[in-house]
């Protein structure tokens, strides 16, 4: 299997059981295509998921796979990744699975920098349980469990991941296959924990949730592509850009200090912020995540952060090696004689 694979090698024999038109299909396709081009091998790839529509994903991949329980996939994957650093471990999760019941495992996996790649299918709804609001649902949304509008302020998964010190944090959407492929590939290449938020359309319970920014004709004006070392500009005519307001010298307080969108021609090209994914300090990445208040106004997509910090499983292995080197590989004879012993004749 070390030869080049084709997409067929990644397709399992299971019939795909998502609703016709569900955004999950295109994510599946993008993943299969990416794995081919990346040169990954099915036998060394494991998909671990929780529960939700999206979490059926592993069944459709001809790799090792576990459809675990709701919210716990990052924890399962953590044990697997620490004990098997040779495997590519992917976590497939939804906005409910990852951020509602699974929020704690999610932030801890990122903090520890476990070598797992988390794909967060964010459709801003609970699909599998038939349409309740999720921790990413916009305020005021009418759903089965919020017939008068939901009151809960939604998480921004990118902000949360950065607050939890994620070393790789990105966002993409299900309408742009190439962008998904790029993001998945970047996640795959990253050593350590990677989180990719995917805006995914649930055409049954939350159709069009992302339309304002991901529809073909809306993208240019509403998606702000983040590209390493490039100025952050967007708009049909690339006429808009992100600037650090303080560059104007306004550091004396007031709500306007920090990132904002400006017309390039108003502020000048040289004031446009140049994106740097590799900043150790995550503050600017965080600021980028706060740029939009929701998926109804210009929103950054791409890699917010990609810093190289030691991966947990490797450190565990190093520590084992280090102790072995110092103390010698343990033998059972020694073990049983760790404490004082005496002999009875």
């Amino acid at each position: 299997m070390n030869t080049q694979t084709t997409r067929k090698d990644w397709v399992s024999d299971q019939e795909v059981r998502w609703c016709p038109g569900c955004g999950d299909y295109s994510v599946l396709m993008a993943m299969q295509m990416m794995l081919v081009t990346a040169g990954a091998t099915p036998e060394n790839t494991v998909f671990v998921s929780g529960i939700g529509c999206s979490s059926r994903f592993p069944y459709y991949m001809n790799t090792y796979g576990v459809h675990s329980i709701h919210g716990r996939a990052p924890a399962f994957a953590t044990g697997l990744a620490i004990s098997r650093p040779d495997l590519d471990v992917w976590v497939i999760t939804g906005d409910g699975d990852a951020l509602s019941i699974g929020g704690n495992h999610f932030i801890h996996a990122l903090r520890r920098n476990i070598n797992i790649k988390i794909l967060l299918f964010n459709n801003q709804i609970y699909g599998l349980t038939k349409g309740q609001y999720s921790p990413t649902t916009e305020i005021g949304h009418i759903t089965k469990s919020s017939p008068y509008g939901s009151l809960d302020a939604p998480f921004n998964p990118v902000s949360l991941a950065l607050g939890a010190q994620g070393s790789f944090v990105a966002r993409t959407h299900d309408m742009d296959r190439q962008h998904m492929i790029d993001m998945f590939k970047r996640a795959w290449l990253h050593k350590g924990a990677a989180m990719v938020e995917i805006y995914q359309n649930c055409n049954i319970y939350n159709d069009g949730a992302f339309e304002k920014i991901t529809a073909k004709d809306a993208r240019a004006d509403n998606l702000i592509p983040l590209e390493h070392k490039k100025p952050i500009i967007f708009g049909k005519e690339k006429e808009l850009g992100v600037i650090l307001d303080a560059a104007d010298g306004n550091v004396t307080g007031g709500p306007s200090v920090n990132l904002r969108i400006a017309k390039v021609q108003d502020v000048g090209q040289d004031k446009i912020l140049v994106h740097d994914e590799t900043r150790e300090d995550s503050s600017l990445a965080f600021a980028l995540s706060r740029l939009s208040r929701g998926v109804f106004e210009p929103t950054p997509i791409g890699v917010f952060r990609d810093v190289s910090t030691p991966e947990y499983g490797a450190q565990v292995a190093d520590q084992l090696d280090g102790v072995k080197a110092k103390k010698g590989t343990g033998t059972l004879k020694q073990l049983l004689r760790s404490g004082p012993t005496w002999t009875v004749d």
Partner: protein
Amino acid sequence: MTNVKTTNVKQLDKLILRFAGDSGDGMQLVGDRFSIESAIFGNDLVTLPDYPAEIRAPAGTLPGVSAFQIQIADHDILTPGDIPDALVAMNPAALKANFRNITSATTIIVNSDSFDERSLAKAGYSSNPLTDGSLAGYKVYEVPMTSLTVEASKDSGAKPRDAERAKNFFALGLVSWIYGRPTKDVLDWMTEHFASKPLVLEVNKRAFNAGYNFGETAELFESSYEIGPAKLPPGEYTQITGNTAIAWGLVVAADLSRLSLFLGSYPITPASDILHELAKHKNFGVRTFQAEDEISAVQAALGASFGGSLGVTTTSGPGLDLKAETIGLALSLELPLLVIDVQRAGPSTGMPTKPEQSDLLTACYGRHGEAPLPVLAAKTPTDCFDVVIEAVRIAIKYRTPVILLSDAYLANGSEPWRLPDLDGFDRIDPGFADSPNYEEADGRRVLYPYLRDADTLARPWVLPGTPGLEHRIGGLEKKEPSGEVSYDPINHALMTRIRRDKIAGIARDIPPVFVDDPDDGVGEGTQLLVLGWGSTYGAITTAAKRVRARGKKVAHAHLTYLNPFPSNLGDVLSKYSKVIVPECNLGQLTMMIRAKFLVDAHCISKVQGQPFKSSELERTIISVLDGQVQHGIDEDGVTR
């Protein structure tokens, strides 16, 4: 200092000694040292630490009392003993808290310096028990331990307030003299242990010697005692707690199965020490993962199992609750997983440092759906080693989560352990699948992850990374034998019964339960069976011995396997007209036995966060034999 006795020396066949003092007084430390002295001297022994949940409750108060009980003997013993022969009480609170545990036969050695007005008040004494006559009838030795310790440190350079803290070693020196303990090992240990703090070392040594010499010279004590070495089987020994025995057993089991050991755990009393112990052994390739919570801990262990490691998780009651859902997943995935529950007194947070046996039913039934799994329990600290290896064997052979029950009593208690011959253990073969196991109609050879071994009903365990065996498994119902998701009604019924039968079938693979009944078939035969499980072993065995010494007949059977039961258990039960089940709960095994065998078994219940005393059980057995209504120890305790 040699072991020359200037006083009258009496021989004892056993000694039950209890150290009690403030949490900060170092009672556990001197208890441990006394144990080691005695073990190396050759006594058999069992220890029982008994400490509060607070780290350092306010000095001098009852909740702050920390105690350590030890029984040493010149013969084989199984419990830390019931009523102390001697109680060392470092302050009034220690005396008061332990007064319920002693009788007038108990020698009391108090640190008289501590019986000042303030300390008496803190302990809730309205007058001084040393002087108000309330100890009349007791043999009390008042020793000004604090001042003698400070005195001994003179010119050492230590401040009196610091020197004072060595008074526990003074006490240790004193009892070492009284009970004829060799002192060399203590002094050697001090030298090593305090090497980096020479002043502390000096003060402690002086205190220890002062205590020893005080015994020798004070002419306060009419006699000293000797407890000869026990005739233990020859071999090399060490002293071990149940928690350490579990940790070591896991390392050995991993070796026997040639698997990497992965422990996912979240700290919780009284299980944490297993994590601590294993974390030390990284040079054995042991991976310990301190998870964010118990759910993550067991999930990570299960993930490691999926990856081909020996996945283990350790916890206590509240943590076991949290693991329930994942344990259900594990048995649906049919992967090996070991869940170790070191039971403590519940419900809820309960009394976190105290033992209880009240997690048996939740171990057996505490998951939604029909979710059976093997449950085992260890009976002594050293037995933990053997049982954990057996639990691993079953988990691997049957691809199933296994729950192993220990408790706070076994966890912290210790006894001498003859190092086993490791060649005597059978290898455990993980038997990873290495090729497809099924031929499709079209001739393709594929892996059916739920195609089972005909004998064990175990499914293949596949190492991710093996080309051609890629497969997907999950918690939804699976089609037999392909493992695909299936909602077919008949298939679900079939799978449910297969999962049950797989676990039930383990009964064929475990030893029959042994019945200790020397009078079996003698005369009229024995009428009464005492059935136990877990840590009641020592107390029941001792009680049965004593009952028999009185010329009465009683049988004792002790269960290691709680699910499935040994296959001869029904036969055993049917041979006795009466069955009683001592349990530190309200009757959990009793219920299981009654349901399964329709035997009118009665629970002898004790739910005090304290192990049974053998005297309690002896009394109970006698009264049952005498035809009196049997009742639990608690009723006794509460009403008297």
